[in-house]
């Protein structure tokens, strides 16, 4: 069972990172999880025994994670988060109804950091299809750390959210100035309605003389038409280098002959097609300076 391999991975990761007191506590909790009350208590108390330090995973550990489950990236995870996720994986899970009820209780009484842990754990939990509504709910949050937990570095939305909910996630990320390049599977789930909504949003921002993340154009490029092309053309004349780059990347993703023509006029800024994922990443990293 998949959950077993995730448990093994997290156990190993924690072994070298918990104090003796933390190890003993965790071991005892894992043994006593048949009691629901014990699970709820342990889930809450975890940080007092594990601390809240970043795991600081090695390149090898990160590699293992992505091999265990595509998109699983615990790079930003903390010790309490790993322990709490291990508790979730080890909790009683005889059927989807029972497990959902257990999650309902945890989610409905969760503090901010518990919520973030819960959403980040979704790709690893059993009965994956049963969490889709819950994941869509997570997208509605206004708490940044919780939104980031479901939207960024998390393969669950790409794998399981229906298109409308996926589009809302991307829109919300744009609204809240969250880095789109950290959304897993962004290119793979591009779609025309999303491109249309983001184009409308761009018009809204331009009309209000407000900023717009250059990352938006990543979702629009493949859906450009002759009539919407001028939106991207406009970017090429921006004084902001990132907007210009976004414009050229979007043109490169478009199949329109007019787009190709425009690109060749800006050949100095043309990026090779194979590099386009890397370049959207570089662009995102530059747009969001710490």
């Amino acid at each position, binding site marked *: 069972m998949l959950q077993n391999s995730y448990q093994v991975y997290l156990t190993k990761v924690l072994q070298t990172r918990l104090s003796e007191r933390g190890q003993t506590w965790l071991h005892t909790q894992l043994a006593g999880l048949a009691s629901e009350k014990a699970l*709820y*208590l342990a889930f*809450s*108390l975890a*940080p*007092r025994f594990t601390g809240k330090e970043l795991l600081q995973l090695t390149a090898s550990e990160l590699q293992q994670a992505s091999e265990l489950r595509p998109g699983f990236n615990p790079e930003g995870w903390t010790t309490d988060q790993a322990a709490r996720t291990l508790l979730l994986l080890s909790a009683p899970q005889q059927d989807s109804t029972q497990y959902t009820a257990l999650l309902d209780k945890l989610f*409905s*009484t*969760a*503090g*901010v*950091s*518990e*919520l973030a842990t819960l959403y980040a754990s979704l790709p690893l939990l059993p009965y994956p299809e049963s969490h889709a509504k819950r994941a869509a709910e997570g997208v509605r949050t*206004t*708490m*940044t*750390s*919780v939104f980031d937990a479901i939207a960024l570095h998390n393969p669950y939305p790409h794998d399981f959210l229906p298109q409308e909910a996926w589009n809302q996630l991307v829109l919300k990320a744009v609204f*809240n*100035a969250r*880095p789109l390049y950290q959304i897993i599977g962004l290119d793979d789930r591009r779609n025309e309605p999303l491109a249309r909504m983001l184009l409308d949003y761009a018009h809204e921002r331009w009309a209000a003389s407000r*900023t717009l*993340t250059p990352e938006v154009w990543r979702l629009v490029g493949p859906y450009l038409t002759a009539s919407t092309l001028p939106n991207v053309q406009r970017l090429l004349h921006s004084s902001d280098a990132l907007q210009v780059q976004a414009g050229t990347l979007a043109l490169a993703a478009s199949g329109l002959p007019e787009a190709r023509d425009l690109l060749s006029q800006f050949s100095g800024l043309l990026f090779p097609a194979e590099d386009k994922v890397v370049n959207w990443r570089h662009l995102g990293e530059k*747009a*969001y*300076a*710490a």
Partner: protein
Amino acid sequence: MRYIDPHVHMISRTTDDYEAMRQAGVVAVIEPAFWMGQPRTQIGSFQDYYSHLIGFERFRASQFGIRHYCTIGLNSKEANNEALAEEVMELLPLFVCKEGVVGVGEIGYDDQTAAEDKYYRLQLELAKEVNLPVQIHTPHRDKKQGTLRSMAVALEHGLDPAMVIVDHNNEETVQAVLDQGFWAAFTIYPHTKMGNERMTEIVKHYGPERIFINSAADWGISDPLAVPKTARLMLERGISPETVEQVTYYNALAAFGQSGQLLETDWLAANPIDQSLKYSGNSILRGGQIPVGEVASDSVIR
């Protein structure tokens, strides 16, 4: 100077208040669980309220660089709905062990009914069981008797007075509270509770030991800057900075720090604004506001 406001109902305050508090030097707030201005009628209201305290309100405060903690409990007013109170007793264990919960509170008496007495006692036992400080709301009507009774009952249940904060004190109650080894908290709240000129006199008389102040700012006419304003007044009136720091920061930290969930490093060590990324150089706090003006020069609260 840094301040802690250890009793303030931020749920009822706007972001203007958070900004002003931050500007004035408030680094941490403790929000006691209380009522919402009218009695709740469903257990779900309690659950969602407790969730709000440990969830969204904590986040909201962090956007302004303020660390938010809370106490959890069934307040005295709503203890009078016994059927509902029973359900709340079931709910409390789910919340009292959450991160950032620094006490069981605010509990005690309102009218001093039998029901209030019953649920006060049950929660004293809970506080003992989970080893958390107790935050006592002393009644506003029949305060002197109510305060004495609150303390007597706490001692009857074997609470260590050093783990018990008796709040909303005044000139009539403070002596007994200090004599019996409890923490004496004072609420600087216009018209109905303490004024800060009177508070200054109390500190001059009793010294700073086990005394600290709060604003208890809530839905009513109240001042979320009561703590920094009172600090300023005390300094103006010749109280030493060390004493002022005790009364507006260190004592609250010590009292509620006994929970293990309130550490000075929470706000000293961390990046106080809990946003790791800026977009195009702009803070991604809501709106990226320019901080409001400083505390007004008239710092007397009557």
